[in-house]
């Protein structure tokens, strides 16, 4: 048997085609579920079409739905036909399908894990493969510790080969609050080392989110301005026009703070505010992210009352269609206090950001779908055009647009043609879609590939998750103490008036994405 090892490979250096993983077997727990169908199978297939996968790849589905290998392959084929960004090519699919197997099994059944181990061993021996295993937990979160423990019990937490690797990908949500996140980390660490655990936040797989770091650190002109001297405040918006889309039970348990702020928005905040890492490497990048998350000023009970707003959507119109209010959605109790909207002000207590407010808002059923980060600069120090400038001349604003129209816009003042000095606000717009016509890979493709290679830069580390939960926890506790009515906003608007008041107290207003 040839086993692979991570000897330094001089032929890889500088090669444009450098990121190909070693042969491995991927085991998907919950392979009959929604995530596997909509995201994982299509991502695997697209990686294969684009020649990113190694020559030998085996995929084992592990779920309770009774399938045999053939039925499983058929399921996978259907999901690729429906959800893949590239059309199904039967020949390429055949290559993927040849290595697909399925175990009908219950996550709670110890015997099933012995069967899994035996199957892995026989694949390894028959195909002369190294013992490289990638476990993917696409299951309800309550099973994460169960599966980890069972894998440990049959020795699958370590490779049978001295040079092999075993990695575990864990889906969101990672915990329900700080205590449960700590507990889950503890349970996983009983079996796996931190370097083996890959916690997914699919936001980090998005091209435009990765581009925040490129934009900041590959361009010389922005970084000198990126601090309290020049930046007035920052607004981060994650707006959705969708409602809870049939996921009432899940959503009522989670709410916007857990569902969006704890993971995605904290990641966006960290990327915008972090210090330059010493290298673009997993721990260097994540060290800096954790530092900035830890520097967020803790919120006192008074701060929570003053600087956070939660709300629920009422009935209203989205694209001309009448939609029900949150409390009238299926599976939502009529006395639910779960927030579908949150706005908040945060301060970061460090040298770079002292005194610069960061405003975050996210909600469902807002006027439109938009994820953006807007950096508002201070006004010019001396306004010698004040006599003639139009009154609506706005300060410079740099907007990083993440979805749906990815791009960057810079707002500045320019002279209106004519004999007197009149200044008007104009926008310099750069749209990814127009300058790069190449189809970008899906977030899950990028993240799966990184996990196959063992690069955890775009996965969240234990301390990152815990820092984000610590902040969110304090807000949850503060809210639990306040018994007042929860504000509401009409579906299809930009949120409750309380959120406008929150930002207006500092003399600003929410920008319109």
């Amino acid at each position: 048997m040839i086993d692979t090892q991570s000897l330094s490979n001089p032929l890889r250096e500088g090669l444009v085609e450098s990121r190909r993983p070693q042969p491995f077997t991927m085991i998907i727990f919950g392979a009959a579920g929604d995530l596997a169908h909509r995201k994982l199978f299509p991502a695997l297939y697209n990686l294969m079409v684009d020649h990113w996968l190694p020559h030998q790849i085996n995929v084992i589905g592990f779920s309770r739905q009774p399938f045999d290998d053939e039925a499983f392959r058929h399921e996978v084929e259907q999901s690729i036909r429906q959800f893949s960004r590239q059309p199904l090519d039967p020949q390429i699919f055949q290559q993927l399908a040849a290595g697909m197997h399925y175990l009908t099994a219950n996550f709670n059944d110890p015997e099933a894990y012995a069967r899994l181990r035996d199957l892995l061993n026989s694949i390894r021996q028959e195909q002369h493969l190294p013992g490289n295993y990638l476990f993917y937990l696409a299951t309800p979160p309550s099973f994460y510790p169960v599966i980890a423990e069972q894998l440990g019990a049959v020795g699958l937490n370590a490779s049978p080969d001295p040079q092999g690797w075993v990695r575990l990908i864990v889906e969101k949500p990672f915990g329900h609050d700080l205590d449960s996140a700590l507990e889950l980390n503890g349970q996983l660490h009983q079996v796996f080392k931190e370097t083996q655990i890959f916690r997914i936040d699919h936001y980090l797989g998005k091209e435009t989110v990765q581009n925040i770091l490129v934009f900041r650190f590959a361009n010389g002109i922005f970084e000198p301005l990126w601090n309290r001297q020049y930046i007035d405040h920052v607004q981060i918006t994650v707006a959705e026009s969708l409602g809870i889309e049939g996921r009432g039970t899940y959503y009522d348990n989670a709410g916007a703070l857990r569902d969006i702020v704890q993971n995605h928005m904290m990641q966006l905040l960290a990327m915008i505010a972090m210090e330059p890492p010493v290298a673009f490497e997993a721990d260097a990048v994540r060290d800096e992210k954790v530092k900035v998350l830890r520097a967020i000023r803790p919120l006192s009970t008074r701060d929570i009352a003053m600087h956070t707003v939660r709300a629920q959507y009422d009935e209203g119109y989205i694209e001309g269609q009448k939609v029900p209010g949150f409390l009238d959605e299926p599976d939502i109790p009529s006395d639910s206090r779960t927030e579908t909207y949150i706005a908040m002000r945060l301060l970061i207590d460090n040298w770079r950001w002292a005194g610069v407010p960061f405003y975050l808002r996210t909600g469902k059923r807002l006027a439109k779908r938009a994820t953006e980060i807007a950096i508002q600069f201070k006004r010019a120090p001396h306004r010698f055009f004040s006599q003639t400038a139009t009154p609506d001349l706005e300060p410079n604003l740099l907007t990083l647009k993440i979805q749906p129209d990815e791009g960057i816009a810079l707002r500045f003042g320019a002279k209106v043609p004519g004999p007197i000095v009149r200044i008007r606000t104009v926008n310099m717009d750069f749209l990814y879609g127009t300058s790069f016509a190449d189809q970008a890979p899906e977030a899950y493709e990028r993240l799966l590939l990184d996990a196959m290679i063992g690069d955890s830069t775009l996965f969240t580390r234990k301390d990152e998750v815990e820092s984000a939960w610590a902040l969110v926890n304090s807000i949850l506790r503060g809210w639990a103490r306040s018994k007042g009515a929860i504000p509401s906003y009409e579906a299809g608007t930009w949120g409750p008036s309380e959120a406008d008041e929150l930002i207006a107290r500092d003399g600003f207003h929410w920008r319109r994405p």
Partner: protein
Amino acid sequence: MESETLHWEHPNIKGPELLRLLRTEVPQALGGIVPVTATVLTLGLYVKGIPETDWMELAEKISHVHPSRVLIINPVTGTAEDTTTHVDAQISATVTYRRRGEPPTLFSECVQMNLRGGLANHWIDVVQSLIKSDLPAYLLWLGAPPLPGFRWDLLSTGFTHLVIDSEQIGLGPWKSAILAGKPLGMAVDDLYWQRLGSWRAHWATLADYPEGLSAITNPDKIVIGWPSSHSSGWRLLLGWLIDRLKWTVSDIEPNYLSIINDYGQTIPVEIHEANDPSFTFHHDAYILSSQSSHKELHSRIMKETEELYTMTDPCYQADPVNDIVKLLNRGHDQLFDFALASLIMNDRD
């Protein structure tokens, strides 16, 4: 996103007129609206002497992926009517519409220039003024290579990259361009080198295995089979290995090379003619052989008579649109310069 492509024909115009037309025609066609420009590069296609090709179609395909100004440079010499200095031009512009109320975007422009009279020789003068400033400018040379004495110095003040394809004619005719371009900051890129990337990636993957690694990086002997010993193909691959593995060349004969590895040992390299390109590395009892045939690159690692491992990858095939699109995505590959420096620039062939 909706888009439309507008076309114009301008026979018999003077060179400077072309620049004015490029500035004014699109806004005129859009009823006076000046579009936002998305163009990120200039691409020249030098096509002199190649018959019967729809260059505009090719240009439009490339600019569909990379928003660009594509200049098709076709110097026409020979017949009597060609003696007056003028350009016969065709222009097409693709405009995209994002949203109602927002100005349209000028996504790309393609200009075919049949250059006649004095311009057939001095085409650089017209082309210089059409190159977009401060953005990368690539010149893809599709015709026969220029004769010695060509003004590479003039060309390289406009174009940042000269793109060639050395598969058919080798690299010999381009050496003067490579030498002249370098001090002036013009990089030379070879589409054949890019296609040979399938070999490099294939070997890099084999070198993830200990047996593959020692066979390729520490061979006792290398045997190369190639359709022509004059080809740049095996030279580019061997040059890459020499550079990456810090070897030096001690002797070059037409069918034989002698290489010294970093331990001071000599590695003999034999080259012979064969239908299908192949490289065989011998190391102790191991043999790693790689062969390209039927659009596939196939390798196997043997230990004496036991086959340890086989691997097959697709081999990149020449395709003018795909090749250039890929190159524009990746930009200049420094490994190419290193490979040239380590073997080809000091080779007589």
